[in-house]
């Protein structure tokens, strides 16, 4: 059982657009793909496809994406992943996130991977708290602060946020 995969998913139109024959063919191909897909008929089918549906909605990306979710006030929640690079060495480091009109950061998470391919959740927490690395965000930058050398850790930060 498979959910329809559109052959031409990245089509959008606004008023005054003139469609070419080629684009009309692409629309027909999309419709045919939907028509030929099997419709989930039971809980097992639906469960099998939850991951697919979720991935379609969120789609982790280094560019801004609308998650399809909304905050408590009705604002759209967007997501963006930033490759922060190496964590600082007993210092504060900042990397621009490039998000315009940032309003509320709903969730801030990510991971760090060291040279031994060991993965850690952000913020970095260790049994020896001297190695902990704080992570926070403001309107322009993502910051990491620590008091030890964590430069062997390559970091990715994902922001979920609303816009003003």
């Amino acid at each position, binding site marked *: 059982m498979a959910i329809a995969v559109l052959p031409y998913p990245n089509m959008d139109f*606004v*008023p005054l657009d003139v469609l070419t024959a080629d684009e009309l063919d692409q629309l027909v191909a999309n419709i045919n793909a939907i028509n030929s897909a099997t419709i989930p008929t039971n809980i097992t089918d639906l469960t099998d496809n939850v991951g697919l549906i979720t991935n379609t909605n969120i789609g982790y990306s280094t560019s801004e994406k609308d998650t399809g979710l909304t905050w408590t006030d009705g604002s*759209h929640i967007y997501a963006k992943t930033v490759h922060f690079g190496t964590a600082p060495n007993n210092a504060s480091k900042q990397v621009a996130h490039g998000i315009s009109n940032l309003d509320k950061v709903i969730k801030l998470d990510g991971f760090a991977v060291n040279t031994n391919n060991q993965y850690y959740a952000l913020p970095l927490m260790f049994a020896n708290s001297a190695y902990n690395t704080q992570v926070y965000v403001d309107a322009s930058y993502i910051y990491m602060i620590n008091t030890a050398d964590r430069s062997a850790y390559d970091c990715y930060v994902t922001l979920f946020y609303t816009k003003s």
Partner: protein
Amino acid sequence: MPSHPNEGNNETMNNLLELNRIALWKPKLLDELTMRETGKGRPYSDGGVIKRTTAKTYRYAKNYEKGKQKFCLFVITYKNDASIEDKLDKIAKKIKVAEITSALETSTDSSFTYTNYYLEEK
């Protein structure tokens, strides 16, 4: 006195193309900037005079959010220029929330509202 023949007339005008004039519409399917190319010969209004385009035109469109309202700005122009996205971004910041609200109330699949902003000042 208006600096452009159509300035001040921002009512919904279906199917009447105006080059370089920024239009406000409900959010399109994709949030990011998308561009479409159309061959020459399209009818358009130039200050109320109907003419035909003499070269390819390009439609640029991008979604924005302001005042918790999501909307799309689009423009049709002769220009094929990467800086147009920056210009749309700047205009999105200038547009007032009340203008967005008003335009979205009348926005349908085929109906949009022209703003009084242009790609280039006349």
